[in-house]
């Protein structure tokens, strides 16, 4: 019975340590704010997603055309609007990139917590 209690106590202590770990490792951080995507990043993310969707749709249309699922007529009817969509989403991205250049990306480990721009 006492063995059980000792093991239970050890377990509890271990769990407390694990939970407190972030505070123990970094007692005086430069910044404690959560690294989040700001509005600019989110807008960029949406544009990137739109661009990827448009490019993937084009690729899939090509594939469907090659396998015969999309007939020549269907292909001709669809490829134009898709190409325009892809082009415009690429343009949107470029415009966004020119207006808000991304600064200082941390490639390894956690971000320093400093976010510029």
């Amino acid at each position, binding site marked *: *019975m006492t*063995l*059980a*209690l000792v*093991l*239970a106590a050890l*377990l*509890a202590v*271990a*769990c407390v340590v*694990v*939970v*407190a*770990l*972030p*505070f123990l490792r*970094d007692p005086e*951080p430069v910044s*404690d*704010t*959560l*690294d*989040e*995507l700001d509005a600019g*990043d*989110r807008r*960029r*993310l*949406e544009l*990137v*997603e*739109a661009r*990827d*969707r448009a490019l*993937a*749709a084009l690729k*899939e*249309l090509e*594939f*469907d055309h*090659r*396998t*015969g*699922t*999309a*007939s020549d*007529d*269907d292909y001709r*009817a*669809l490829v134009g609007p898709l190409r325009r969509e892809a082009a415009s989403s690429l343009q949107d991205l470029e415009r966004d990139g020119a207006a808000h250049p*991304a*600064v200082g*990306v*941390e*490639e*390894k*480990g*956690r*971000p320093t*917590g400093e976010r510029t721009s």
Partner: protein
Amino acid sequence: MAELGRAALVVSLSLSVYALVAGAAAAHLGRRRLAFSAQNALLAAFASTLVASAVLLSALLRNDFSFTYVARTTSEALPTAYTISAFWGGQEGSLLLWLLVLTGFAAAAVRLNRGWARDLIVWVVPVFGAVSTFFAFLLVAVANPFATQAAPGDGLGMTPSLQNPYMLAHPPLLYLGYVGLTVPFAFAIGALISGRTDERWLVATRRWTLVAWTALGIGQLLGAHWAYEEVGWGGYYAWDPVENAALMPWLAATAFLHSVMIQEKRGMLRVWNILLVLLAFSLSLFGTFLTRSGVVNSIHSFTQSSIGPWFLAFIGVVVTVSLALVFWRLPKLRSPTKLESVVSREAAFLYNNLLLLALCLTIFWGVVYPLLSEAVRGEAVVLGREYYDFFLRIFGLPLLLLMGIGPLIAWRRASLRSLLTTFRWPTGAAVVTGLVLLALGAGSSVPGLIAYTFAAFVITTIALEFARGTRARKALGATSWPGAFSSLISRNRRRYGGYVVHAAIVLLAIGIAGSSAFDTVAEAKLTRGQSMEIGDYRLEYRTLDERIAANATEIRAELAVSRGGRDLGTLEAGKNAYTIEEQVSNEVGIRSDPLTGEDLFVIAEQIDPDGAVYFRVFVKPLVNLIWIAGLVFLLGSLITLWPDAREQRRLVERAREIGVPATR
């Protein structure tokens, strides 16, 4: 050691509460270290639940009957494998397994995604914490697996029908499925709360949903196989509420898997997807509520066990809060694109969703109708098999056909003229198949004939897709046909893996149609030496043997089987009388024909003292296709799940473009 188990569960509960509260605070206030601390709490909760599980498992293996749970679910004579399965065989143990899988999945899902979706993860953690708190609370306060007693000499033993290999794998797989659905749900709610309604929550949870869905599907097939062989009434699915409990979330998850593809390709149906994942998760909770609460067992009282109301309350909270969140975020969920044509792949997916949901809700209605009618009229009205069979046909047959139509339609818009060309071969194959089968006598069951015809249509479609795709890849410069084939699949894993899964469903449909619409049954009371006939089989009752096994007395009637004069060997059918459990179980004799896939299914219904046996015999055509379908299903899922290096690179690239650290 029971105290250690109890303490570990209390620790798990505390950690879950911490993950919920601290996680929510960290997300709301934007505190980094607190957020990591909450994430760690999920991991620690898994560890402490693991400790509790180890305590229970060791008590089972040691036959420690001072644990009330162990005494109730096992006995000394029980074989080790089944002693282990007793872990999830009872109420408390199965809840512990649920919590173990839940905390494990939560810790893993958070850990794997925190690098690239940090702002989403911070809100996912408290959701996991909330669900985990519920189950940990049940284990600590309502259904304690570590209750102790004065140890009796021996345990009560395990129900004989559960002492079967399928019952070893069936519950854990179902739990992987049920609990696995928590992951997309948590991410969806996290996306709603954080306002991060982009596609990251879908991308992060796609494989989790697939794994859960596959586990749920395979688990159900194993359960059906168990019912077929072990319960032995000649069928494999009885539309029992307990069976429906697993089918409903599976159908909702199937709809979800399809509609997320629309969101990924076209950005549409965002609200729909969140509602679907909420439905799937709620149904999985509802399903486990059905099997636990005693609603199923007692026809009259609403809940017999005290655990039922807790589950209902939790489901109520989940649904209410989730719907409120959806309503709050509705403006953000508006999608920019619209459905362009009712003849398009998007539309086909939409029809698929509607049919799946219709079937799911019909089954749900059938399950709750007795409860509702009792509450309203004081009288429980039960809907029978005919109800379910009717709606399975009405919604299932069009779904079957749709599986063949969907892949042949292009995205956005397809002209009717192109459809006529692409549908030529499949339609031809279907018509020919239908006519041939009609000539062979399949007209005896119209739904069965329709099922076969549609199956032919879909199989042709799938074969054509593989053929055309391989040819296209070869034209692009692949070295050989096998090379073209394998590169086709590896470059389009989701599409072709999906086709394999569709093929599995077709096999399932053929097997179900054959064994239920075109089966034959015969009954006879035979004394030793007498024979009976069914179809073109002839069975002669030879001897009656009695054997003593480890925990049962086995009585077997031996029959000689022949067909068209040719000897096909012997078959045994009989009963087992279990000593400790004081129960009798049916042991059916099954002879599977490797060529035709049909089963000769023999039940020794009644064994008289004078050795005369009342036999009930079935011939079930094509029934083994159902089990083969399970294997094909697994193969298709594996192909779809397989990690794709190209996809990984794309995600990393995208992260870099946005300026988010791309670490995992």
